[in-house]
């Protein structure tokens, strides 16, 4: 993380050095990034004819950063933070989420999803409506279900709140597919989806996200003790650097090995990226008619007349 870039170049911020590890090549100008993301949020809402937004606030750094950005863009009074814990969610998560809400002075609601989830999978000896197949469901199935239950709650709450759901997924997790399709990835727009986790941390530190949230180990909190880095087998700085050189800077496997990346890690990350391609794209439609949406019917999402009246 040395800041000894060539003479005449800009100083790479180092004040946050102790809070987290920031690979040098991933350092961005946080003022410019904030400017673009805040403008993007305003623009997306304005073009769609909305003045309010809502997010699922987990207590983690990604949704905390988005909360800060939305508050900066439209004011905290226009933001609704929905906290949606399951009964095994860590108490720390809800506590950290509350910290963000208090810091910003935003609106908040708690909607527990325990009964929704247990109603399907069952609770203890009590069978759920999902029947036998649901009873012995894996943690993965349950985790995905929870992510989608939160999506349902969020989209339902968007109606009385009269706001758009803002996405909180980062570039790292999108690229390796560490998301639930139509679950946590569902949103109207996403201001931080082109920031690697390390860059999320950098902007979060600059914008004033509480230190406790920046410091703690990232977790999907889908089961007790789960952490992203243990599950993935990489630390975020390692993974971010590899993805950056592989994808943004188009380095070949051979070049990556020369740079010091582990061959097995390269192969594994490449496979994760390839196998999750479907999560990053709109579902394909069989081409039949003369003009097909997404193929040869191509309009800007925000074309004239597209805004809600």
């Amino acid at each position, binding site marked *: 993380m040395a800041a000894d*870039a060539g003479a005449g*170049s*800009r100083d*790479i*911020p180092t004040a946050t050095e102790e809070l987290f590890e920031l690979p040098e*090549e991933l*350092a*961005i*100008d946080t*003022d*410019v*990034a904030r*400017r*673009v993301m805040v*403008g*993007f949020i305003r*623009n997306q809402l304005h073009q769609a004819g909305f003045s309010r937004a809502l997010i699922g606030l987990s207590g983690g750094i990604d949704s905390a950063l988005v909360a800060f950005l939305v508050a900066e863009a439209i004011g905290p009074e226009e933001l609704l933070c929905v906290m949606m814990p399951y009964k095994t969610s860590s108490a720390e998560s809800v506590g950290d989420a509350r910290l963000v809400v208090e810091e910003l002075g935003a609106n908040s609601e708690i909607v527990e999803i325990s009964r929704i989830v247990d109603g399907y999978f069952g609770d203890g000896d009590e069978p759920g409506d999902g029947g036998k197949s649901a009873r012995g469901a894996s943690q993965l199935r349950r985790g995905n279900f929870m992510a989608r239950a939160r999506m349902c709650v969020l989209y339902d709450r968007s109606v009385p709140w009269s706001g758009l759901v803002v996405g909180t997924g980062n570039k790292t997790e999108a690229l390796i597919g560490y998301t639930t399709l139509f679950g946590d990835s569902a949103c109207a727009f996403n201001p931080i989806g082109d920031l690697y986790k390390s860059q999320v941390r950098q902007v979060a530190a600059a914008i004033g996200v509480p230190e406790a949230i920046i410091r703690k180990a990232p977790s999907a909190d889908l089961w007790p003790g789960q952490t992203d880095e243990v599950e993935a087998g990489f630390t975020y700085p390692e993974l971010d650097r590899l993805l950056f050189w592989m994808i943004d800077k188009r380095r070949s496997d051979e070049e990556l090995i020369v740079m010091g990346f582990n061959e097995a890690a390269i192969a594994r990350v490449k496979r994760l990226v390839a196998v999750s391609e479907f999560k990053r794209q709109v579902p394909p439609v069989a081409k039949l008619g003369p003009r097909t949406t997404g193929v040869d*019917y*191509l*309009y*800007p*999402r*925000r*074309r*004239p007349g597209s805004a809600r009246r």
Partner: protein
Amino acid sequence: MKPLRIALAQMAPVLGALDDNIARHHDTLEAARAGGAGLVVFPELGLTGYQLQDLAAEVAMRADDPRLAGLAVAADGMSAVMSFVEEADDHRLFISAALLEEGEVRFVHRKLFLPTYGLFDERRFFAAGDRLRTVESRLGVRLGIAVCEDFWHLAVPETLALDGAQILINVSSSPGRDLAAIHEVGLGTAASWRTLMRTYAQLTTSFLVFCNRVGMDETVSFWGGSEVIAPSGEAVFTAPLFDAGLHFVDIELGDVRRERIGLPLLRDERPELHLRELRRILAERTDMAIDQASESPAADDRPNGDRAARERELT
């Protein structure tokens, strides 16, 4: 000599909202006139917005469209450069920049280079222009007008300067990207453009006027940072990044003469040399010289025979 006052309209057009954008051009012309401008420059596709996709055909105007004529009337007494989707008689669509002077559309430049890579997809929706000409202006000098990507090709500013331009005007919708902290102003795109514009102004010993839009279309943010660069390569004015604004900049056209007397690069250009070598390169690229080369006895037994033979033939 009275300085020329340039008004840079660093604005954010509304995507696809032709009427709104025309109205805003009218307002801006009025403000520029009130500010004493002699030359008003609007960004690329300022009348339509940039990421049009299939909307392009819906906002297209012919160069003789009465709405453009109306803007020309409004600009009378000034020189105005504004950009729109032009529909030709044969219904090809172009990204065009028009010079409006003395109540009429005096000249239209059709974008020559249509980026279709990375985040760009212009060639899918537009035809490329095929004329590169300067235009005599009421300002007393010839203007060279180009659109955005045109200036990522060296031949464009060079040709315009050789054709007599003393002010090179580039209108752009440049999307900001490459946010690394190592770049000047934190934005790779801005750093690249600044390097190019200073270089072109210096090498052509011309004024360079760059007007880039701001605001967002869909996912991309346009970074603004419009500039006026002197024939010495020094920036006379740099507009803020991302903020909309109408900026007035005064220049001394006499600086072109001073620079060209002191640094006679244009005098020393060798267009005939360039042309000769370009002809050779083209011939080699298209294998047009192969027949000539095959007559040479040296061609068969030397690996570079073809080329060596051609070089003899052509010199």
